[in-house]
């Protein structure tokens, strides 16, 4: 539990910032959140990056950040059922890591590690697997618990899957651009 507070605070701020940026674009460029918003689902990047680099310690802060997203109202008991998709979304990344672990792709930070935290291609693989879990499990929960007024079809699963991947790619590329001066000094 070392550095739990620092990790939680960093994770919460990073995840919340992505939620705010994503909501801002949804509200400004779209009347109803559907295709465009889902296609660049930025918050998935926070799940991937924070769980890959900070481990399980990041899960509570990620969960809290997702709670103060637009779908949860603490004063309305009936909305508590919405916690299920939120938990599944956050857990999609640890599930992806566990799945890769089962296939002997252990996460580490040395060159010999089958999955190297320092290699963005390996992060892309984790993103891909977690996007599969997220799109399947969340839509399964939404469908079974009847949380959506619309019918959940295969197109929604595909939209979630593509959105998670593109959203994470946008965030990572933006971070690489923004941190260019730091990265240049570093090497």
């Amino acid at each position: 539990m070392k550095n739990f507070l620092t990790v939680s605070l960093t994770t919460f701020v990073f995840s919340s910032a992505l939620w705010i940026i994503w909501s801002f674009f949804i509200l400004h460029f779209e009347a109803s959140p559907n295709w465009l918003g889902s296609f660049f689902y930025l918050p998935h990047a926070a799940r991937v990056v924070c769980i890959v680099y900070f481990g399980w310690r990041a899960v509570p802060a990620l969960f809290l950040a997702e709670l103060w997203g637009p779908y949860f109202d603490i004063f309305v008991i009936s909305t508590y059922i919405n916690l299920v998709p939120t938990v599944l979304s956050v857990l999609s990344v640890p599930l992806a890591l566990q799945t890769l672990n089962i296939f002997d792709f252990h996460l580490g930070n040395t060159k010999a590690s089958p999955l190297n935290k320092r290699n963005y291609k390996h992060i892309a693989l984790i993103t891909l697997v977690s996007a599969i879990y997220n799109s399947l499990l969340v839509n399964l929960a939404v469908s079974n618990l009847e949380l959506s007024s619309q019918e959940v079809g295969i197109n929604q699963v595909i939209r979630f899957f593509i959105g998670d991947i593109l959203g994470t790619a946008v965030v990572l590329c933006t971070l690489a651009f923004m941190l260019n001066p730091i990265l240049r000094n570093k090497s």
Partner: protein
Amino acid sequence: MKEFYQNINDALNMLNGLENDLNIRHFTPNELKVFYTIITRSAFNQHGSNITEIVENSGMSRSTVYKTLKKLSTEGIIDINQSQDDGRESLIILNSLAK
């Protein structure tokens, strides 16, 4: 705290690899700013942005933007095309989108 910094260092190393493969390592801060503005504009308009839009969105002077665009064009990163609607206007488009 050492472990936390180690994690941040790992994340920076990952971004460093991404930056290398995007081939933006040699960019100056001005070039990076203009390039980033063009990418952001491309998300909203695939037909390209005009120079005035890039000047306004990058917050840099027109002459600096002109010089930077010329360099990016020479390196083959962007294409500068004449607008079909207005012959006096040039449209800037990322090379990958132009193909």
